């Protein structure tokens, strides 16, 4: 069985994202399915520039902080619920 590459997850902890709900995502140990968690490499990252830079390549149309990058693709308005779903999709992809 070949080992699957871990999903690279970056949670934006720039001040704007952090106070608009990004801080909640840092509690991922408490709410994320352990199986999904084991397939991810999660880190806190500096500003992903999605809030300031309107031209940034953002995957969603209506995107507000907090932003999360999953395998290089940026998602906005991520709450705990959406975080779980996105990671689950990415891990099982």
């Amino acid at each position, binding site marked *: 069985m070949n080992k699957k590459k871990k999903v690279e997850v*970056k949670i934006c*902890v*720039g*001040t*704007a994202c*952090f*106070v*608009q*709900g990004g*801080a*909640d995502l*840092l*509690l991922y140990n*408490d709410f994320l399915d352990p199986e999904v968690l084991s397939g991810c*490499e*999660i*880190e*806190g*990252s*500096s*500003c*992903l*520039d999605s809030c*300031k830079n309107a031209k940034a390549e953002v995957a969603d149309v209506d995107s507000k902080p907090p932003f999360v*990058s999953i395998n*290089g693709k*940026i998602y906005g308005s991520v709450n705990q619920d959406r975080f779980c779903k996105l990671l689950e999709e990415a891990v099982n992809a």
Partner: protein
Amino acid sequence: MLELNNQYTLMKRRIDTDVLRLFFDDRLEADADKLPFLIIPKDRIPNRCCIYKERAMVRYRIMALLGIDIERFDDEMKPLAEYVQEIMDEDPPAVPVLTTIITGCSGCPQDQYRISDACRGCFARPCLANCPKDAIVFINGQAHILEDRCIRCGKCMEVCPFHAVVHIPVPCEDACPVGAVKKNEQGFVEIDHKMCISCGKCARSCPFGAIVERSGLMPVAKMLKNGEKVTAMVAPAIEGQFPGSLAQIKAALLKLGFTDVVEVAEGAEVTSIHEAEEVVERKEQGKGYMTTSCCPAYMELINKHLPFLKERHSTALTPMAYTAKLCKERDPQSRRVFIGPCLAKRVEAARTPEVDGVINFSELAALFIARDIDVREMEAVDLGDTSSFSDCREFACSTGVAGCVLHRVSQEDIRTLPVNGLDKKSVRLMKTWERKAPDADLVEVMCCEGGCIAGPGTIVKPALAMRLRSGSGIPAGKVAASVLGGRPAAGGSTPASKMPSKS
């Protein structure tokens, strides 16, 4: 109490930020009346009945942010621009801190227990057997509660094996520790300011946002914009509220325009030394228990509801008051702004001539975002010599104050008792102390459960705040995050103290 992060708090922060942006761009007076339309656009799917009510509520929120006492000075004919003009000319009075938005109030029905369809009409019927008032009857094989007999004790809810009994509270009344939140004749919220201790629990509990804090942010924003000399006095609870170390937070505050940043922990040291002496003296003289005096909501509680404790609380001033005095000695010209998690602090500040303004962490975050300041990107600055008072940063957590006092007492037999959170129950307990003294020498009272880190003006949940305070919480990757075509990461220039390897 509502979860800290919800639609309402996020909306609140967004409004704060948008108002501040306009303010610093000199466009607030011109554009304030456009804000409700920009924040609630036509195509939004409303959370309230319609977008028009949402816009009206945004308007009220802006008024609260401007510091208008909505309860008394709500004039629907008056454009926001006029309110802005007024507060630019003169700062509104600081108290009362809380005000209500009657039109936002949903007029929740009276607190009640109800038995839902989940009732299976079981044979054991523990609800029937445990009800102290015989208020349960069975109709068509299902339990029902007789409203006129029910005393809302909740026994039936506790014992039902199917969780068929639901408690439907009135959140604001439920949260108020002193019964100051009531309904008026029309069934809408009303605060009895003679009883209110300004703890802010009602405002945090209302899911409709009908109780709001009259903010003290604009007077402080004015000071910053005018380039006045202002010292920021940061409460110990600030650590863990932003994604960066204390040194980075200080740097961000300086960038914001504060001329100096002083930790209130410094004043907390004076408080704990004073309280340590006092508690020992009282014990030696056999005077009985002493309570702490640093929680302003508790002090309001004493003044308004438990006057017998006036002889019991420590005569030490609060950390904020000592810090403000220290700052005034060092630089009499500079103005002094307290930045904390607390709402009741504004009542105390109004009585403390050394303090010129109070804002909370959530408002500070709005200031940071409006000025495009990212705490995490800041270069850490020197905090100075904090060795004597660094342990007093624990004043922000329950049992922390007593710990700091004990630390400064040589005797070892001081018994402490924490009152962790004021609610109806703990207030009832404290009332009994008039007749029967508590079995302790030092009683530490904190209005917010968990301490100031759970205060109404905080940004992150206490559990996460604790983790961030201990240095873990933000996971660092293997490579010090150089981000997707973005700027170089903060990792190189900032101290690694707050970014340890994966927790």
